[in-house]
């Protein structure tokens, strides 16, 4: 049960990653690899500030801002210097590896007993619930785990709502239109370059926020923790799209959040069944590969079947 609970919590925290990936991959069609570095950057910046005794809220915000800055760098490399999108992301990501080490000063920063957003969530819950464990539907759940889950749910809900609101504003709609049809939005007076930079910055800001929260939940930041982030995010987005099967903005956002949770639950179950953790990234990559090619093959297959039925009719 604890395993499931932590899968839920991590899934909700990483739903911010999934929403960030949604912005870069789906809104902008920008395959952004910066996130591998910016997740770690968010975690590193937040962790080091927390250890140095800053307010965890400020530390988390700084982590997210640092990620946004990294994203903006990728955006500038792509739009102002004409570097290929993938390569721009790779350059920033590679640079971030060194930067993250500099930020942390070593490869791993444990948070131990520092005050973090997670401990703050627990202490505010302890004011309502005095027992160490909470019984829900017959399960005994540690108060700390339950408060973390609620806090992660709160973050995902707030960010999801803010995103829903933003994409229905003048600026947000222009952003969606930029990904949809550059020629059109340019003719309506929007700088596609600036909009792309802002979009990729926003995306990486969310990913870094996920990193900052993840570090506080798991109790450490590690320079390796971001490896594979792109693929996690993409897997969550794809699962989410399959879950909601709708193009409407609200459902897509809910889908991205649900996709992230479901992905984490699947990972937890696979590990429970004895999957070697070392194989996890290989299997995730294979899963994304299948998810990416299935629509193409499905289309080809239905086309072929239709041809065959025409041939029979004729």
């Amino acid at each position, binding site marked *: 049960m604890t395993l499931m609970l932590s899968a839920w919590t991590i899934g909700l925290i990483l739903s911010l990653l999934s929403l960030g990936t949604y912005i870069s991959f789906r809104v902008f069609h920008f395959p952004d690899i910066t996130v591998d570095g910016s997740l770690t950057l968010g975690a590193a910046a937040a962790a080091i500030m927390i250890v140095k005794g800053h307010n965890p809220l400020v530390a988390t915000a700084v982590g997210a801002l640092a990620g946004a800055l990294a994203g903006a760098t990728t955006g500038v490399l792509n739009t102002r210097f004409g570097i290929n999108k993938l390569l721009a992301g790779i350059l920033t990501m590679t640079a971030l590896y060194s930067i993250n080490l500099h930020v942390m000063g070593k490869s791993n920063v444990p948070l131990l007993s520092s005050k973090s957003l997670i401990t703050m969530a627990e202490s505010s819950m302890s004011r309502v619930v005095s027992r160490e464990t909470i019984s829900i539907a017959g399960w005994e759940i540690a108060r700390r785990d339950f408060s973390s889950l609620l806090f992660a749910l709160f973050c995902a809900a707030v960010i999801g709502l803010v995103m829903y609101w*933003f994409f*229905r*504003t*003048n*600026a*947000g*709609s*222009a952003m*969606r*239109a930029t990904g*949809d*049809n550059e*020629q*059109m*939005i*340019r*003719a*309506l*007076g*929007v*700088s*596609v370059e600036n909009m792309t930079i802002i979009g990729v910055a926003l995306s990486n800001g969310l990913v870094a926020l996920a990193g900052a929260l993840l570090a506080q939940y798991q109790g450490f930041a590690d320079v390796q923790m971001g490896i594979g982030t792109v693929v996690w995010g993409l897997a969550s987005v794809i699962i989410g799209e399959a879950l909601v099967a709708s*193009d409407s903005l609200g459902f897509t956002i809910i889908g991205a959040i649900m996709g992230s949770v479901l992905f984490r639950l699947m990972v937890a179950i696979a590990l429970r069944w004895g999957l070697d953790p070392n194989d996890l990234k290989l299997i995730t990559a294979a899963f994304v590969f299948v998810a990416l090619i299935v629509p193409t093959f499905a289309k080809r297959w239905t086309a072929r079947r239709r041809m065959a039925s025409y041939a029979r009719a004729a």
Partner: protein
Amino acid sequence: MLELHNVVKHFTAEAGRPVLALDHLTLRAEEGSFITVIGTNGSGKSTLQGAIAGSIPVDSGTIRIAGVDVTRWPEHRRASMIGRVFQNPFSGTAPNLTVAENLALAARRGQSRRLGWVLGRRTREQMRDRVAGLGMGLESRLDTAIGLLSGGQRQALTLLMATLVRPKLLLLDEHTAALDPKSADQVVRLTRQIVERERLTTFMVTHSMHQAATVGDRLLMMHQGGIIMDCEGAAKRRLRADELLRRFEDLRRRELLDEGAAELIRVAYV
């Protein structure tokens, strides 16, 4: 309203000499004039439109719109003055956004876009009225993704979007060329209606001799990066499509002859 002075544009080909697309082109268009532009393939008519819109930077010369020198302005900045409709009906609208959202985006052409709702109740009502004005029954489909509409419907909406905020200059780039004849007629009729009602300065590139002869009050024929025919007023009204076609054939024959001659010389001397 629109002034071009000595505008030059070269395109560099992969191999060989640069091609002169606009050859010291000078043009003045009065406020409220409706200009149609025809020309052979490669005559520079699309380049001219791109140069005015800002999508094609020019080598030299100046471009002024409403007295403002916009020669060095990027495309998105010129959008505050220019409304555009493209040849491809899919180019002017964002397919995954709804009809109402597309219109609302166009309602802020050239203005800042902040964090106000894109579709408030009032904007929505206004958009419904404007769409109803097209007389195509699209007002019941405001919440449909615009990508689900036909090419003709999308082009009519693009035209509406381009003129939602009154542009100082309306650029139409063969905007009926990709439509079926019936939709093309409808879009041309709408174009005339909107341009006349709003008294818009309009610059329309077209492939259709018939359109060129019957629409607008001034006609330009382009060839090899320059304007070789410019008629307006009574002369334009007298103009017939078959006459234009004849002049066009003349041009093409002369061009063929040129190429034939060049070939002869190459065979003889190289």
